[in-house]
């Protein structure tokens, strides 16, 4: 510490003496050679690391990944029910149920749970996504049993005390107020609604003011009883614990968890894509949030991975035409991307970017043109190879930590994909040809049926939308947005 201070003082003294000298100009060293990039070293073999899958008698699926580099263990549980399972009129139920899990369970109060996990230097987090809820705990290796004991209380025996319900409801209402003014979050909510219609995937998982107000203790207890059963859950134990010890712990804390009957889930299919443009007016915006997309395919669809490669050419890592055109060539944005979101029952292709208000129409035109080009023109071998080289080369970076490994196994199980395919990733990626890409692009990409959401200072850009083929749009003030109504406006 002291040595550092003295060194700093010496440098300061040195500078005042040197500052009288003229500044040197930047020029490449004359001796610097023109040369080609060096050849790589001998590659090392990459294999998917070992893992084990077991099942308890009550149906709980267990994934084990043992690695002792750091003295910590993480336990990640997935329950197969999320916002998609929210009953109509009870939006936000899955989200708030997950929030309440650690706000009192068995004999522990909310404050005790917080103190128990913080005191052992652990992390406990709960939440809900579209198709699932999760409970994750990370503890130091010596606290594995303590972590499991806490986790089993939280997962199996939440109290749902009225005082905690009221408290968390109030927080959720405040959070809605903040997200209703966040352009990114509003744009995301509205594009989901346009793409999925009134299918559960089109509904806001955070709920609405009215739906949150309507939730009662019986709703939470019912949701929990119905879905939080071992035959509807997966758990991964990951890190510095042997498979035998990991399994003994899971047996002890989850072995007597009673299985249950699962309700059917059979929502109506999302609507066919239709072109619809929603302009959300936010007069104080300096940038417009742009979302463009339409329906894709569910994760388990046979064409998912091929379509995913096509969408990566449009806007994913290793390729990303949107970024090349919008940022590198045109300086219209800081970032642009496109994703194929594959959920359990449906999926979406969504491109997103943001640009200063004056460039809104032009950026939108470029995004739509890139959808169109992907569908119209056969992708060049070189471009596809580059995208595939990235995907294949990137594989070792995706198996660095035990949590990354477990996530891949959990995803495979959750979406009911084949575990045998996991180590064959490289072959699957390289097996896709430009013809395959053209086939899925022609079939699934519908440039004339894109939904568009623009959140920004409407007065400053709507006049230019007609010139780029989007003269027909619906304009809604930011504070009048209601995704539950047919015309997306508050009634």
């Amino acid at each position, binding site marked *: 510490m002291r040595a550092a201070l003295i*060194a700093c003082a010496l440098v300061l003294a040195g500078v005042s003496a040197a500052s009288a000298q003229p*500044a040197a100009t930047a020029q490449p060293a004359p001796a610097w050679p023109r040369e080609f990039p060096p050849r790589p070293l001998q590659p090392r073999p990459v294999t998917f690391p070992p893992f084990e899958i077991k099942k308890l008698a009550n149906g709980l699926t267990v994934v084990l990944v043992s690695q002792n580099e750091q003295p910590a263990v993480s336990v990640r549980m997935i329950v197969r029910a999320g916002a998609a399972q929210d009953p109509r009129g009870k939006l936000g139920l899955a989200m708030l149920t997950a929030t309440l899990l650690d706000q009192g369970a068995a004999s522990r109060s909310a404050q005790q749970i917080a103190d128990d996990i913080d005191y052992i230097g652990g992390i406990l987090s709960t939440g809900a996504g579209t198709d699932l809820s999760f409970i994750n705990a990370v503890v130091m290796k010596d606290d594995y049993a303590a972590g499991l004991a806490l986790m089993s209380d939280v997962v199996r025996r939440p109290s749902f005390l009225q005082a905690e319900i009221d408290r968390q409801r109030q927080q959720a209402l405040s959070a809605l107020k903040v997200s209703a003014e966040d352009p990114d979050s509003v744009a995301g909510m509205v594009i989901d609604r346009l793409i999925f219609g009134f299918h559960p995937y089109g509904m806001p998982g955070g709920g609405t003011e009215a739906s949150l107000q309507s939730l009662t203790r019986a709703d939470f207890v019912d949701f929990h009883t119905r879905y939080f059963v071992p035959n509807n859950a997966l758990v991964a134990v990951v890190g510095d614990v042997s498979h035998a010890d990991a399994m003994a712990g899971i047996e002890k804390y989850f072995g007597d968890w009673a299985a249950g009957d699962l309700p059917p889930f059979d929502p109506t299919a999302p609507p066919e894509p239709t072109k619809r443009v929603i302009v959300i007016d936010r007069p104080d915006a300096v940038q417009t949030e742009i979302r463009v997309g339409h329906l894709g395919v569910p994760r388990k669809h046979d064409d998912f991975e091929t379509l995913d490669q096509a969408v990566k050419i449009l806007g994913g890592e290793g390729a990303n035409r949107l970024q090349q055109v919008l940022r590198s060539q045109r300086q219209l944005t800081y970032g642009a991307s496109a994703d194929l979101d594959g959920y359990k029952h449906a999926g979406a292709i969504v491109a997103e970017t943001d640009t200063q208000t004056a460039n809104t129409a032009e950026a939108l035109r470029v995004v739509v043109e890139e959808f169109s080009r992907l569908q119209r023109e056969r992708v060049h071998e070189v471009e596809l190879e*580059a995208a595939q080289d990235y995907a294949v080369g990137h594989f070792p970076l995706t198996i660095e930590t035990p949590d990354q490994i477990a996530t891949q196994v959990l995803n495979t199980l959750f979406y009911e994909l084949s575990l045998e395919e996991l180590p064959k990733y490289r072959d699957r990626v390289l097996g896709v040809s430009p013809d395959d890409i053209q086939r899925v692009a022609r079939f699934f990409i519908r440039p004339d049926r894109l939904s568009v959401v623009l959140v920004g200072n409407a007065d400053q850009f709507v006049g230019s939308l007609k010139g780029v083929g989007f003269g027909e749009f619906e304009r809604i003030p930011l504070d009048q947005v209601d995704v539950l109504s047919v015309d997306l406006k508050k009634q």
Partner: protein
Amino acid sequence: MRTSLKIGVVLVAAALVWSASPEAATRPPKFVYQRLQLSNGLTVILHQDRSTPIVNVQLWYHVGSKDEKPGRTGFAHFFEHLMFKGSRNVEPEQHTSIVASVGGQANAYTNEDTTVFWQTVPAHFLPLVLWMEADRMATLRIDQDTFVREREVVKEERRMRIENQPYGRLNEIIYEQAFTTHPYRHPVIGSMEDLSAATLADVRDFYATYYVPSNVTVVIAGDFDVAEATNLVHQYFDRVPKAAKPVPRDIPREPAQKQEKRVTVEEAVPLPAVVVAHHITYDGHPDAYPLHIAAKVLSDGNSSRIYRKLVYESGMALTAFGQANLIEHPNLFYAVAIVNPGQSPAAVEKALIAELDRMKAEGVTPRELQRSKNQFARDYILGRETVQQKASHLAHAEVLHADITTADGEFDIFQNITQADVQRVSKTYFTPESRVVIHIMPKGPASRGQEVRQ
């Protein structure tokens, strides 16, 4: 260097055995590394970790926004962008795509003190990455066209990150209120007027001044053979010319604040925010460690004091947190609360100050102290899982502490902190004279603010 480290390890291990108790935090494994210095002044740290066949390479240029002169803010960050614009052997925009073409990831970030370029690649591409980094360190292309075009991207970045987000300007507001003189006063992304006024000569001068090997630490962490990596480092970096002049460090000091500052500003925010800040010391100062502990007791986890009082018990705040921003020069501890509808910012301010006052009057309990030490151990362990994280810790110790042994050594400093230490630093820094109180109120239609009672 290596010899002294080994002695240090033995002593620390002995101390741990002697003081071990059932409550003692789990000790993370220690780093093993080699440190070299090239004749041009470049520092190189090698950390071998063969668990996965990948390697992370990061270059820490010891230049950040605090090195910028008035009227030239935003240069360090802007320069980070320009480093992707090609060099003698690498075409513009190709750095990232070359790394991507082998499956790697590359990016960069700039903060107040440093500009960091990093890439993680499959291990056998280590020569490629070192070669490209040396190329842009020595022969960056800087031309008028690139410079003008990239400025537009930075302007979009500022709009996206700061101007178009609710609470996006929070940090900017805190620092422009709390600092008068030191360049920490201005945001890292800088002023767009300054960037617009910049000339090509300014940018070239910045490169010649700060992008010199003696101002850089290269860390290589991952799967490599040490002798081979050492040879590669010499092959590609020995030829980078030595700086023509020393790197200037004439950064103005912030004069001590003599009395509390209070300010209310209006911003486009959905709910009011209250900030209570105090001037504190710098990263590496002996007081920095107890200040971190104080921040953890106040704000790490749902059992922390600020969360419990302001969010859980009273429901005054949607979210509330406090953190000690300990960086290279003296900076701030600040607590922020977003005020729930129907709650009063004045009451929230009072509650935040009450927590700091309580820390001065009562200190922390033994249980709170042990809890924060355990949380520290957790942060250490979970913060060292990937080669990128490991490289960052080593670089941080080398560049900002000028002492690489702190990458491990701080663990024991933290575990030895006492209740008295925490109370002492609370009394030293959480004084009314050093306090800055900011109320950020929603602007616009009266309807937005009507639920707020002052």
